[in-house]
């Protein structure tokens, strides 16, 4: 039988609360420290409104917001890793 909302909250609310506070603290930390605006923070701020929406696929929407939506393969890799949000062209 599928767990109820109450059961899931009992299991996971404190963990989700912890993660949300950690995100809030991260935003405070970035604001508090010197440096130029960064595309990753802009990308993150754009996803926050998704969390408040009523759609049933918020995780998917957040992942899509953090994704490169170009369609053609690039000529060559200039680095091997990934940064979590597409770099501005």
């Amino acid at each position, binding site marked *: 039988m599928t767990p109820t909302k109450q059961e899931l909250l009992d*299991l996971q609310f404190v963990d989700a609360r912890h993660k949300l506070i950690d995100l809030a603290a991260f935003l405070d930390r970035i604001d508090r420290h010197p440096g130029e605006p960064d595309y990753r923070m802009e990308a993150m701020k754009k996803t926050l409104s998704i969390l408040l929406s009523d759609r049933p696929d918020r995780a*998917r929407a957040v992942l899509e917001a953090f994704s490169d939506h170009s369609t053609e393969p690039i000529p*060559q890799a200039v680095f091997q890793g990934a940064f979590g949000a597409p770099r501005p062209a």
Partner: protein
Amino acid sequence: MVSRTTDDYEMLALAGCEVLCEPAFWAGFDRSSAAGFYDYFRQLTEYEPKRAAKYGIKHYCWLCINPKEADDPVFAREVMALIPEFLDCPTVLGIGEIGLNKNTRNELAIFEEHVQLAVDRDLPILIHTPHLEDKLKGTRLTLDLLASFSNLDRNKVIIDHVEEHTIAPVLDAGYWAGMTLYPQSKCSLSRAVDMIEVYGPDRLWMNSACDWGVSDPLAVPRCLQEMKRRHHSAADIQRIAYQHPKQFLSQSARFQP
């Protein structure tokens, strides 16, 4: 598990693991010669099976040049030329983990050549999808490339590291989908169970990342605990943990569960 200590084999054995498969992957730094890969393929086919066997675990592997080192096509083809020598080893299941990393033209060309190699030999294929911001585009390019192989048996292909934005197109196209469990950066235990609930268990499996970065070989047993906490039946847990990997891997003539 070339990146892990022997303790991890022991922990897996204690958790009830009897069989594992390890893809050829990026070791955290680029190898400077094809000879480095020759040694690596020997390690995967000779040494790791013996190391795992000490703990009663059967070790299988997949072979390829991984996409992170495949952007130099001359080098990649040197490495690919070594692969046929190892394909008859008794623990080699197929070709993997191939695919894309930064979604380059050269990665795509080498990916295509690997798929052709697998099709020519009727081998299963394990496909890596890119990280973070590159995953959506890389998955789309992967599906486009695979669609160009008219004689590809989609049931013999698993596309790995799916997340909520890539799982549906992979399953809709008829491939298996792998959820790679990571403590950070990729799919968490809770999200994997969410995907099982939302998309259903068909053609889904989960795997523990056991690489050189922050990863947890016991992620699969931990995720099975998460399924139990969320009232999934013992039969459903058994299906994901045992029957699905067995069903997919049994398509390799080498696999002996």
